[in-house]
């Protein structure tokens, strides 16, 4: 394994579904050694370590930035032996702070306890397009291994020179270089003290294969767990810098409303309030939240509203407003559908719908911004700190180097914290606050209303199977929800797959797994229908049409743990299966449910999921992610749905938008397949995908009624 990185260009519709900026404002590194101690970084260039080139859509289109080649940009060895890793990814609960530290410790040969990570700070970490698309592990793990491996080799070279020994005979590990022959040893910190700038890393620089990992691959606990159980960790919402003002934004009554009358004369006399009107943006900052709210309440404003469609009309609207496919990549054909359908013994056609849902991270969007001497500092829970930096620079007409965005470990995101909104709003207020920092914390209602949603979708599927149960034709149209996992993993000769773009109705963007959940729901429900139509076992039918060994492996592992096929023990019991792959990882989910006879309410009693994402970096963190995705997936599967009418969200509260709670959680088993021979893929998204279709298929097993809409409960009850 050479550790080189693939060149990675995002397909926006597959890895990103971009929410547009909310406001149009009219208004217009490398000093970390001071913080971390001088002279101890290694200033060598690492060969081939910076091929990774992520791009991501931003307000100015696609953003590219060279990743630094210097080891010192990624790694620093302190006088006390502490190793600091610098990565632009954000910790949002997915456990990268721990897993990346494990990777460095493992490759460099230092104790895990001696590695700490500096994450997502635009002033000190290398550029990063964002923490999304399950990219942190597949890009940053090899990058850090390459860098750590080069650093370790340089330290060995240095020791060899000092001892006049052969480098190959020295051993690096446990934070030091040792000469087994003489018994001499030098700590990394002592060696790194020397100027090694002239040293060149060896041309061949293999990193450790997963089979030789000692610290990576271990179920180590979250590094700073103690900070969290004591309540001492500071999220963005918890920051209280000196002189802090609290901000509040005046929200329009409905989406797209414009400000047509504005009278602030009642606020003019209030000396302790910073009031900003900039286009349709109106906000206030005061020493208390109540003070800012009071000021906004005194304004006389009028909004012009627009008529907008409601949730009742959404699916016909999506079908009728689809734009013709402009790009080849949206429409994929193989073989002849007509021939495939003609050859089929059974044909089946169905439409599936998926509702808008909200991320609802428990920490709402929030930011603290400060403007001093033409420079912004913004602390913010975001998945894309460098994009926030660029947005701020563009909007406030300052050079990007005058904007620093720092991401405190964040109260989750699930794909929902890609936009700059809260940061821009706090910065707009701070720009007027005379150097005082301004904190803006969105309320839960704002979070549910003004963030963005996982887009609704309509999916039309036609399938045909021959008498022997083999697929002969597959036609799949996704309207609006997205392209993630749109291609069928099953072997079929005649295929048409098309993604139909539709202009946005509600502000929409990325959500954990993107459209992979919608596409898997439609595909795996349809596969189940085909199997049932032909009188075949749903698992056997899938396996008969599947050549992908990794997908077969997860199906078989989960089936074995679940005990498929199962006999019903009671009338309204049902069992279902669904499987899939996306972003380099594989999942199979089995569900056992019961359906309440009168109300048709679905009770999920047991979920068994097998997941495989290559070599596992931290099995404990991975299990947490997989189980968490399964539970989060229950919400979208069963009951989550955003209701909207005329530009207003009518269930923008936890009392009216139901998310999974303890009583909803079934017995859960997660089976993790560790493939040490396959590079590690990300794991944050794929484990959510097969939950909904597995439950829907179990519902059919229980009732002989086919559910075709998410959330399922909206159709079953």
């Amino acid at each position: 394994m050479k550790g080189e990185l693939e060149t990675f260009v995002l397909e926006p519709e597959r890895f990103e579904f971009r929410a547009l900026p909310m406001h149009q404002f009219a208004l217009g590194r490398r000093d970390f050694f001071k913080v971390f101690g001088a002279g101890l970084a290694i200033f060598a260039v690492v060969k081939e370590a910076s091929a990774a080139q992520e791009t991501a859509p931003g307000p100015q289109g696609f953003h590219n930035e060279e990743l630094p080649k210097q080891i010192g940009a990624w790694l620093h060895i302190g006088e006390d032996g502490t190793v600091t890793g610098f990565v632009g990814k954000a910790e949002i609960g997915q456990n990268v702070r721990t897993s990346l530290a494990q990777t460095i410790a493992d490759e460099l040969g230092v104790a895990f306890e001696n590695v700490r990570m500096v994450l997502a700070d635009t002033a000190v970490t290398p550029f990063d397009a964002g923490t999304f698309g399950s990219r942190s592990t597949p890009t940053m793990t090899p990058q850090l291994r390459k860098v750590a491996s080069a650093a370790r080799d340089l330290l060995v070279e240095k020791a060899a020179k000092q001892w006049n020994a052969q480098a190959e005979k020295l051993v690096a590990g446990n934070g030091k270089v040792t000469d087994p022959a003489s018994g001499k040893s030098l700590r990394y910190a002592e060696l790194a003290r020397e100027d090694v700038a002239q040293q060149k890393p060896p041309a061949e620089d293999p990193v450790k294969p997963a089979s030789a990992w000692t610290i990576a691959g271990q179920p180590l606990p979250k590094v700073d767990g103690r900070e969290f159980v004591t309540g001492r960790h500071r999220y963005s919402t918890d920051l209280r810098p000196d002189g802090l003002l609290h901000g509040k934004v005046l929200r329009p009554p409905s989406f797209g409303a414009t400000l047509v009358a504005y009278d602030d004369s009642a606020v003019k006399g209030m000396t302790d309030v910073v009031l900003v009107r900039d286009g349709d943006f109106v906000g206030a900052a005061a020493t208390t939240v109540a003070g800012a709210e009071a000021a906004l309440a005194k304004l006389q404003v009028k909004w012009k509203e627009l008529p907008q469609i409601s949730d009742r009309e959404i699916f016909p609207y999506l079908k009728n407003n689809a734009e013709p496919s402009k790009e080849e990549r949206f429409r994929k054909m193989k073989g002849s559908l007509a021939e495939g359908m003609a050859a089929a013994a059974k044909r089946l056609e169905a439409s599936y719908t998926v509702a808008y849902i909200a991320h609802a991270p428990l920490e709402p969007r929030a930011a603290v911004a400060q403007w001093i001497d033409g420079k912004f500092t913004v602390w913010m829970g975001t998945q894309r700190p460098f994009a926030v930096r660029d947005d701020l620079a563009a909007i406030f007409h300052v050079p990007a180097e005058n904007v620093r965005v720092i991401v405190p470990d964040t109260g989750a995101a699930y794909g929902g914290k890609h936009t700059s909104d809260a940061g821009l709003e706090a910065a707009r207020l701070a720009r007027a606050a005379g150097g005082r920092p301004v904190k803006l914390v969105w309320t839960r209602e704002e979070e549910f209303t003004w963030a963005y949603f996982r887009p609704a979708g309509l999916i039309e599927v036609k399938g045909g199977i021959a008498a022997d149960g083999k697929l002969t034709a597959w036609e799949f149209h996704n309207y609006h929800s997205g392209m993630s996992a749109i291609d069928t993993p099953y072997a079929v000769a005649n295929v048409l797959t098309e993604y139909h773009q539709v202009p946005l109705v509600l502000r929409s963007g990325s959500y954990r797994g993107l459209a992979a959940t919608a596409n898997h729901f439609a595909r795996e429900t349809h596969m189940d229908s085909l199997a049932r139509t032909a009188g075949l076992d749903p698992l056997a039918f899938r396996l008969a049409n599947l050549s992908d060994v990794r997908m077969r492996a997860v199906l078989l592992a989960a089936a074995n743990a679940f005990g498929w096929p199962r006999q019903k023990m009671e009338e309204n019991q049902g069992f279902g299966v669904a499987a899939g792959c996306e972003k380099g990882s594989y999942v199979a989910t089995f569900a056992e449910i019961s359906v309440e006879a009168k109300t048709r309410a679905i009770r999920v009693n047991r979920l068994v999921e097998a997941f495989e994402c290559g070599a596992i970096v931290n099995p404990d963190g991975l299990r947490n992610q997989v189980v968490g995705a399964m539970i989060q997936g229950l919400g979208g599967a069963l009951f989550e749905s955003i209701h909207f009418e005329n530009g207003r969200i009518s269930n923008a509260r936890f009392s009216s938008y139901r998310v999974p709670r303890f009583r909803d959680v079934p017995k859960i088993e997660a089976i993790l397949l560790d493939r040490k021979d396959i590079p590690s893929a990300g794991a944050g998204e794929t484990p959510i995908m097969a939950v909904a279709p597995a439950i829907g298929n179990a519902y059919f097993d229980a009732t002989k009624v086919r559910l075709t809409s998410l959330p399922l409960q909206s159709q079953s009850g």
Partner: protein
Amino acid sequence: MAESIPLEINGKKYAVNYAPDTPLLYVLRDELGLTGSKYGCGEGMCGACTVLLAGVARRSCQIAVNAVAGRPILTIEGLDKDGELHPVQQAFLDAGAFQCAYCTSGMIMSTVSLLQANPHPTPEQIVQGLQGNICRCGAHPRIIEAVQKAAGSVKGRAQ
């Protein structure tokens, strides 16, 4: 309109000048810097702001600050003593019962309240006791495991 309101939080006495109907949560967080209690919904539906009022779990976003004048309030910051974690905190840490951990303070405070009232809850009683606390990351099975572990250690300490 603001008057001085005496508060007793984590065994320490404070006097705050706040509008009497201000939710306790905002006084804790914005005035006293006790930010371990979190804002999650402002309507008592998520449990992230849970504190103990005279030993019983309450949603601090739903209590007016003047209603708790002089009554003992315990927040997450008052749970560990001299660097030693409370058994419930230790159990959450040992079970790795969190991901983003934004709900963790509230989960721990609700658990302390639950175990004080019922030192040996059944799984159903744990679910009932934590039903008002939302975890969006899906750490529920580990949280239940942590509560069960803590129940054991609380018992162990009492013996």
